[in-house]
């Protein structure tokens, strides 16, 4: 039926712990008050570390008080402490292993362009520009805008069919019929000019009566980027 004192030993508690819960509660409230007031002091004195200590340091102390006294972990069998400790250690392991990748935005040979751009935009917005201006348009456009290079884009998107050298010998193009165009072939350029190149890239070859295998890519490029892509394709054209 209901628990009585004789069964307390069997509950795994050490006997004779008498915690004054009210005292602990009052201490918790005092610590809480300090942690709220901390940032105000921080602003007055300009000492950032005060916030860190008051906010997070106190959080740890409060947590420890609750865990030990309200949850009675201090009087619990060792196994419970060990299993909680191991979950905390694994958590720290996770953060330690992941932080070098996620927290940094640059390393020895790499740079997280998109993240850096996001940081810059955000800081610019905070210092006065409107939120709308700083709003991103969409992930793909953003990344490309951040570091757009027609050569890179050609390599990523066009070369699989048209080949890195624009000869129509890309690996994905091998199975296509008609075969992808070769930009180094003078015959290809008969009757085609730069404007047509822009149209085909943007709207697909079907838009000019060609094969639907050449898909429309306009969604990926701004007008300025289309011009750059056309210039790059034109650069394969053999001189007359």
């Amino acid at each position, binding site marked *: 039926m209901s628990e009585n004192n004789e069964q307390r030993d069997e509950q795994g508690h050490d006997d004779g712990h008498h915690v004054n819960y009210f005292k602990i509660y009052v201490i918790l409230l005092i610590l809480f008050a300090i942690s709220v007031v901390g940032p105000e002091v921080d602003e007055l004195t300009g000492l950032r570390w005060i916030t860190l200590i008051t906010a997070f340091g106190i959080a740890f102390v409060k947590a420890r008080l609750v865990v030990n006294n309200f949850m009675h972990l201090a009087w619990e069998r060792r196994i419970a402490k060990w299993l909680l400790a191991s979950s905390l250690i694994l958590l720290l392991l*996770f953060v330690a*292993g992941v932080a070098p*990748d996620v927290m940094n935005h640059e390393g020895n040979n790499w740079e997280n362009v998109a993240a850096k751009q996001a*940081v810059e935009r955000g800081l610019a917005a905070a210092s006065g520009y409107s939120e709308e201006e700083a709003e991103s348009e969409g992930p793909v456009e953003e990344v490309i805008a951040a570091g757009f290079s027609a050569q890179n884009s050609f390599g990523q998107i066009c070369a699989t069919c048209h080949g890195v050298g624009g000869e129509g010998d890309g*690996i994905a193009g091998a*199975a296509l019929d008609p075969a992808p165009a070769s930009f180094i072939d003078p015959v290809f350029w008969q009757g085609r000019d730069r404007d047509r190149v822009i149209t085909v890239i943007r709207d697909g070859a079907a838009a000019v009566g060609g094969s639907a295998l050449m898909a429309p890519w306009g969604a990926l490029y701004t007008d300025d980027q289309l011009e750059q892509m056309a210039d790059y394709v034109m650069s394969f054209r053999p001189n007359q």
Partner: protein
Amino acid sequence: MADTLAEVQKQEVHGHDHDHHDQGFVSKYIFSTDHKIIAMQYLFTGMLMGVIGGYMAYVFRMQLAFPGISVPGFGQVSPGEYNSLITNHGSIMIFWVAMPVLIAAFGNYLIPLMIGADDMVFPRINRLSFQVFFVSSVVLLLSLFVEGGGFGGAWTSYPPLSASGDYNLTQLGASLWLIAVALEFVAFLLGGINFITTLMNSRAPGMKAYDIPMVCWMIVIASILFMLSVGPLLAGAVMLLFDQTLNTGFYDPARGGDPILWQHLFWFFGHPEVYVVLLPAIGITVDVMATFSRKKLFGYKLVLYTAVATGVLSFFVWAHHQFIAGIDPRMANVFTVTTLLISVPIAEMLFVMIATLYGGSITLTTPMLWALAFLAEFLIGGVTGIFLGASGADIYFHDTYFVLAHFHYTFFPIAIIGTFCAFTYWFPKMFGKMMNETLGKIHFWGTIIPFNFIFIPLFVLGMGGQHRRIYNFEHFPEIAGPEYFQLRQIATIALLIMLAFQAVFFFNVVMSWWKGEKAGRNPWRANTLEWTTESPPPHGNWPVEDLPTVYRGPYEYGHPDREEDYWPQNLPG
């Protein structure tokens, strides 16, 4: 401590009322809280999902060997469908076959029986865990039939592909897949609580920690690994779900997120997960080997501590899945060392198996054949992992079929061989009938031989540079030649043969259940407690006043003081 337990037991000896008369079919079999029924529910759901996952493998392997054909029983395979098939094949086999069968089904069935308890300590949470699992299976299968089709972004579900319907073209399928996986995680968290607390607390009087059969230890260690590793991924899955449905930017670099974070969250869980399924399979194998060599397990404490060490170490190797994702090469060094190191405890467990067999009086029953096959095939899988664990070699091998063949040489022994080993061994206890040995052996050879013919060609193809997750190799001239296609066809035909032989298994199960020879309590003359009760065990496992007391360890075979070559744990003196 013993006094306290005895006192408590005396007080509660009438605690298990038998107010279960006149239970209808529904409440007895559908809504049961009996651990054995719940185990069966998991077993059958898991096996059904296995059939579905196998069907998917059939379809995509047909496409790979004979590109463009109309696959009998499916039709032509579009690239999107191909991606969806491989994604769901992988997810199903790991989350809806290996885990429910090895851990939930056999854990639920065996743990209370092997420790001399009448049920799990939280029967209703047990039932709830199956219900959540069942819902997760339904959600997953539903995801295959919604608009856009099933999710096709690989079982690893990396963003940005998985985060946006614009990229993966399976918006609804992707979210349903993710919800199904999250529900499956919750089901196993709930189930794990039962396994762990029951094993820790509810052992028979006299059963010390080192008297517990290895399979119980392994399932519980696996549950602990699972509980401690799945947390960050569950958080990450919620974040991914929000990216998919609410258009948040958790994994979008342009909005301050990071796709690499997902990779870390996923693999921090993903790597311990493979040991979550490996350890129970090793436990099953080891128990079966001891029984059929009539010999004590070579190093009980060694295996136990090694399993714990493997579990701990498994948390330190996860980034070997990300060697070429652009991580700091110095981090890659660290993870190479830890990955190579983890092969040591596992190799040790395989050595223990060999040492147990050596000098034993071996009977090649069907379960024993499966246990031996586990040893042989997993060995191949394990050593090929060494190549992949070295970050330098992995630069070439990553994402090739070499990886795929490696993990099938590890997963297949775990999920399939382990399942058949356990099923054929404990079938007599579960159903009270013996399985037909001849059919069992035919099924065994008809599975193992084709299995090797499926995956050895894939090692060769992988070394030749064939990449994963490509639906038609005709598009890659260097690996589209006839000799390459021949290897792919050998693999596919071997798969067809292997799938055909599974009919022998199903036939055997049905015929044995219906007309098999009666099994009696202990047909294998084994030591552990489950063999002391009826086959199948009644509700409550033993009569309430007759719960077993334990006097020795589980592997006392061939003891010199005994005339019999086995010494059940519950026999006094």
